[in-house]
């Protein structure tokens, strides 16, 4: 996804001379093509994330479309007050593009994990949040939004879900129904679509007719698609690599909470720090982002043993 990001900056930057990219000493080499094609519009500013956010707001105030790119905890958690006051409160548009959210830097510990970036940005007025997990999801939505008056956060994951969705079905704020079903609605956010797709055969073997909804945009949230599906099936399972507080699963629970007779559960990151290292798969296993866990939750919701 990082290479996709770099290519998209090059593509858009060649068309629009108001695009400026600021990075906090990451992706420097990947962005060299942009730097060469768009002289004066690429800055590897240094290791000073709050300042980079404020500089980007100044660029926005003076008519540019800034992109700030670095690792999620430093971009969002360290720069949060600057995001709140210098972009959102001042009603300035811009783009924050992270890598290394959730536990993508799986071997580096909690300083490099970021469980609540979506919650933080979601809490601010004037923001949009996109969690693409395939290249065309990022390029399609970035192309639609990079120049609007909102602050848009793109959370680029390490793992792609691998499911091909055509460009014409990708739209900011629109959930995508990938499978019709009657028994239960499964809602997958970003890379966790991969986990759900991996258990498709197991679900079918149990005779579970599941409806599958994929979500790449958390704000604005597609309430109608979720609501319609939940009312139809009466049972909802959501799965997302984010803190149990404030992410996409929270949005699902808010929608479902307004509906009568719908049971819902979610798989997300519990409210504690994971002190483990290892590979992403180790974190998946520890936190329950597995096909077997999806299957277990579905069985619980359906009352199956």
């Amino acid at each position, binding site marked *: 996804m990082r290479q996709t990001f770099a290519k998209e900056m090059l593509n858009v930057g060649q068309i629009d001379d108001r695009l*400026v990219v600021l990075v906090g000493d990451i992706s420097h080499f990947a962005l060299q093509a942009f730097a060469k094609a768009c002289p*004066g*519009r690429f*800055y590897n*500013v*240094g290791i*000073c994330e*709050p*300042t980079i*956010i*404020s*500089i*980007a*707001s*100044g*660029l*926005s*105030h*003076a*008519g*540019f479309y*800034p992109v700030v790119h670095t690792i999620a905890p430093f971009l969002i958690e360290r720069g949060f*007050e*600057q995001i709140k*006051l*210098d972009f959102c*409160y*001042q*009603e300035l548009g811009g783009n924050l593009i992270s890598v290394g959210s959730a536990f993508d830097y799986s071997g580096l510990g909690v300083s490099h994990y970021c469980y609540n970036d979506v919650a933080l940005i979601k809490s601010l007025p004037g923001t949009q949040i996109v969690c693409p997990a395939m290249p065309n999801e990022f390029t399609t939505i970035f192309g639609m939004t990079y120049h609007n008056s909102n602050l848009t956060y793109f959370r680029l994951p390490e793992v792609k879900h691998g499911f091909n969705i055509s460009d014409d079905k990708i739209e900011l704020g629109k959930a995508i129904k990938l499978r019709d079903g009657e028994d239960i609605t499964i809602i997958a956010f970003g890379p966790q679509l991969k986990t759900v797709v991996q258990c498709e055969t197991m679900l079918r073997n149990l005779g579970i007719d599941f409806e599958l909804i994929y979500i790449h945009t958390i704000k604005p949230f597609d309430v109608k698609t979720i609501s319609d599906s939940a009312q139809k099936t009466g049972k909802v399972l959501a799965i997302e690599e984010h803190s149990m507080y404030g992410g996409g699963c929270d949005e699902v629970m808010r929608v479902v909470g307004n509906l009568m007779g719908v049971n819902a559960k979610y798989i997300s990151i519990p409210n504690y720090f994971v002190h483990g290292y290892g590979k992403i798969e180790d974190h998946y296993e520890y936190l329950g982002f597995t096909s077997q866990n999806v299957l277990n939750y579905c069985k619980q919701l359906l009352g199956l043993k």
Partner: protein
Amino acid sequence: MNKLLRKKIVQTITTGGEGHIPSSFSIVDLIDVLYSKHLKFNSTNPTWAERDYFVLSKGHGCMALYVVLEKFGFITQSDLDQYGNFDGILGGHPDRTKVPGIEASTGSLGHGLPIAVGIALAHQIRQNENRVYVLVGDGECHEGTIWESALVAHNLKLNHLCCIVDYNGSAAQIMPHPNISDQWKSFGWNVLNIDGHTEDEIDKALCTFRSNQNDKPSVIIAKTVKGKGVSFLESHGIWHHKIPNQLEYNAIIEELDK
């Protein structure tokens, strides 16, 4: 020392029941000279593309800026009369979405300088001549973002950027700067030291910045007095965020009328 603007500051803050009088007195001469003689602006078209920018980073001193904006026609006396009201455009920290001529909403310290760096960078990219001025407090210079920005501005050769430090020493009670001029010099800036209440010195320093030929950003360390102009306000104590009662108000005006 501009007594007329000081009286307006006290009148407005006393009526509105909110504000920082000594901080505003500390910087009002700097802002007045900047707008009177150096800043390029069009108050009937505040977003004029060829304008210079002024960012008040120490937002709590905003009354000094409000009275100057009123003097030059960005806002009206009626706006000042509504200061502090829920429906007014003016409050205890400036809001750029509401007030013509305010370039940045500030309040939390350490934001205005990096925003100004971004504005200066934007005009450098476009090879424009717009200048960017930003006023920070010496207490604000405790913030890490000030020094991050100072390093970035030097590294990017933002020579159309001028930072004015309101060096009233208030924060020195807590954590003094051993040598603030040397600090800025060591970050690669042109440094000018002046008295921040003497019009001629302010004017000359701003002329020096505008005629600067090297590629460094410039900083003007303006030695100021918090509460300058009224003896009992000239301290670092209770008056920082105090609203005068009628007797105190009368005493302030009496001193300013001398």
